[in-house]
């Protein structure tokens, strides 16, 4: 009964990017329902991602971001659902000439759920919770640029860096501001967000109620209950029977037919950042050859693959960068589907009769199906694919850590993760000095425009190098009953802001 995606929730494979901030597309689902909603209605949200504990520095998983980011805890900045980085708990900030010192002025009148006022000391301890030695936060590495945090007075925080970092505001949007008196927060919470944690029953549900003393706009609903499912079918049934109002991300296209043509439900497609790709081990022959990689990319009809797996949903991409990253450009024409030229290029590269390789394929959806499709496509240009099914754990140890593989399939879920191509030690071993330099330098620039320009250039180079075979971008699908509106669609970084959600009677 356990579907394979559940065994290893794909977002647990989040690998992290360091790059900086700004602008994307898309917004909130707004239907005609905005009028006439019930401000006391409790919104029931179905999710497959139960947090493992309530502390995002203690390996709580993506579920905690979904439930708590922006709802129970807030940061100095917020990454909005449209991808902008905006100030949240600060009134403003100054950057020194050398871009090494940031001075933040905290917002007045902000208090924690326990009643304590927000002070600079809380911010300092919150940043240190993430950077602490025993912290398991995925953001720890990106905040390593922080040299010190000082608190000249209660409302001022000074952060000193050891090297300029254009991404600091973006990275700070991941740091929860926690009351410094809160102690262990693995089973309770004390944040500044619009909701307080009411109760969490492990394996079942997590309830939040509006915080009376919230500094900002009061929520449009009377509370939220996240109901956790271990099985996607059980979750769909709960939506069908009205036990939940929304499911946060649909993992399989099969389920959509239940909802798509039914007026009782709304199916919304947001911008996803999850990329399905075939990663070659670029260190070893024949995959160290750009010609071979380009040939293979041209041999595969991605459009056919995407439609076989997701029907009308999902997007084709010509590179690793999704449309919601600022450095996106449409590169689907580079190495577009063209089996004839694929054969020619293989011959030019010295493989007129093709070759064979082993494709390490994670055992959960959609990888095995994708592997078979690739096997068929590549056979047409004389390349034999040997499919080797492995578990997610094996993938970590064999492919990710030991880098002992020829090619593998994987989904990469983060936005702004082009930086992986700037790290020659990353599992796929892509090593182009120009890209390494562009990505490294883009962090030290003084403007977002300069950063965007450099990363756009890097993006084009990896596409021309066919560094990996980027197959498609997953759709990000939220399904709700039709009397619920104004929920976030994109779910960037697994966030799910619930404060604006409205439910009509």
């Amino acid at each position, binding site marked *: *009964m*356990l579907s394979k995606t559940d*065994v*290893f929730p794909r977002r647990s494979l989040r690998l992290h990017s360091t790059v900086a901030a700004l602008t994307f597309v898309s917004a909130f689902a707004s239907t005609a329902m905005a009028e006439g909603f019930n401000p006391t209605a409790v919104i029931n949200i179905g999710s497959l991602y139960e947090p*493992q*504990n309530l*502390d995002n520095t*203690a*390996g709580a*998983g993506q579920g905690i971001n979904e439930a708590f980011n922006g709802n129970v805890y807030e940061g100095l900045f917020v990454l909005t659902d449209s991808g902008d980085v905006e100030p949240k708990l600060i009134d403003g900030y100054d950057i020194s000439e050398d871009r090494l010192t940031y001075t933040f002025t905290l917002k007045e009148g902000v208090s924690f759920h326990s009643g304590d006022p927000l002070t600079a000391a809380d911010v300092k301890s919150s940043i240190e919770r993430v950077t602490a030695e025993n912290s*398991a936060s995925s953001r720890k590495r990106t905040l390593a640029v922080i040299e010190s945090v000082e608190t000249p007075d209660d409302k001022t925080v000074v952060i000193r860096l050891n090297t300029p970092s254009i991404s600091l505001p973006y990275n700070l949007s991941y740091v929860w501001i926690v009351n410094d008196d809160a102690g262990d927060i*693995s*089973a309770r919470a004390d944040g500044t967000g619009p909701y307080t944690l009411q*109760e969490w*029953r*492990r*394996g*079942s*549900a*997590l*309830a939040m109620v509006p915080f009376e003393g919230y500094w900002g706009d009061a929520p449009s609903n009377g509370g939220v*209950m996240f*109901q*956790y*499912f*271990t*099985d996607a*079918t*059980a*979750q769909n*049934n*709960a939506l*069908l*029977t009205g*036990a939940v109002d929304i499911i946060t991300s649909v993992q399989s296209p099969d389920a959509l037919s239940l909802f798509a043509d039914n007026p009782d439900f709304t199916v919304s497609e947001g911008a996803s950042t999850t990329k399905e790709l075939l990663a070659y081990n670029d260190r070893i022959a024949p995959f160290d050859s750009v010609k071979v990689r380009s040939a293979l990319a041209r041999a595969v009809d991605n459009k056919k693959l995407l439609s076989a797996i997701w029907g009308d949903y999902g997007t084709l991409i010509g590179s690793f960068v999704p449309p919601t990253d600022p450095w996106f450009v449409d590169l689907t024409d580079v190495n577009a589907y063209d089996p004839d030229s694929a054969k020619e290029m293989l011959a030019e590269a010295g493989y007129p009769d093709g070759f064979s390789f082993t494709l390490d394929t994670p055992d959960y959806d959609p990888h095995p199906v994708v592997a078979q499709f690739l096997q068929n496509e590549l056979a047409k240009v004389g390349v034999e694919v040997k499919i080797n099914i492995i578990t997610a*754990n094996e993938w*970590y140890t064999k492919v*990710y*850590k030991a880098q002992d593989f020829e090619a593998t399939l994987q989904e990469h879920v983060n936005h702004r993760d082009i930086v992986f191509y700037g790290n020659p030690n990353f599992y796929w071993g892509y090593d182009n000095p120009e890209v390494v330099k562009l990505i490294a330098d883009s962090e030290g620039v003084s403007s977002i425009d300069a950063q965007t320009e450099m990363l756009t250039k890097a993006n084009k180079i990896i596409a021309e190098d066919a560094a990996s075979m980027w197959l498609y971008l997953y759709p990000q699908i939220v399904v709700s009953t039709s009397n619920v509106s104004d929920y976030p669609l994109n779910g960037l970084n697994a966030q799910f802001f619930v404060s604006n959600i409205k439910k009509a009677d």
Partner: protein
Amino acid sequence: MLAYMIRRLVILLLSLFLAAIVLFVLLRLLPGDPANALVGVGATPEQIAAAQAQLGSDQPLAAQFVKYLRDIVQLDLGNSFVSRASVLDEISRRLSVTLPLTLASFVLALLIAVPFGILAAVKSDRWYGLLLSVVSQVGIAVPVFWLGILLVYEFSLNLRWLPSGGFPLRGYADPARAVQSMILPVLTISIVMSASLMRYVRAATLEVLGSDFLRTARALGESHTGALMRHGIRNGAVPVISVLGIELSTAFLGAVVVEQVFSLPGMGSMLLLGIQQRDYPSIQGVLIVSTLLVLMTGFLADLLQRVLDPRLRQGGKQ
């Protein structure tokens, strides 16, 4: 009887000890050090060493085994790697779902299986007696998860009578919803369980029906039903009870599947989650507690058999 109880208790303790050894060995046979699971993928060698020291996995096996036994005796099952919470607390919370689920299913299965099993035996020459045997044969072949899905489809999705899954946030403090969310899971387990129980009850009854003592009772003037009630049930119950112990254990383990189908926060889902997350303390804790419960069930079933059957008490054979 007392001597037997003591002997049986010694056997119980010995089995527990053996089971503990098997669990210990099995968990250590798994590839990889639990310390790796504790600190995660990106850990430095220093962090792994620190985790090993914390878990004691750097100690010699003998020392680890002594500590392991001591912890079990003291009911210290450690803290989960992922939630950091006490495993024993979590298990007791989860048992509050799994035990009622198992026991209610068991009772319901008995309520179905005993009367229908007897009926199937007594009326084995009638069409409905035959039908009952056929139904129970078919019922044995039904996979639990499939039946669960069918019940959800009919009673939740079509009729909208019952929730399709989940358990209320406040648990039994929300009694109406808690009971509602238990109905389909209980039906699922008990229907499948009653099918196989019915076969045993039917077989035991048939044997009793052909027995000399029943004929003698009839000869002494008791009615057919009276003789069956007074002598038949008690005699027929003895072999059934030995099966019941096993069935109850099976139901407990079958809860793993049913909890998954219905998203119930019980022991079964805890075990599955623990395995997915390589949460060694949770896996070990669930296995220890389940083993204990299964062995205790066998122990109680044996005692009950002795109470019902004087021949066993006198050291005789059935």
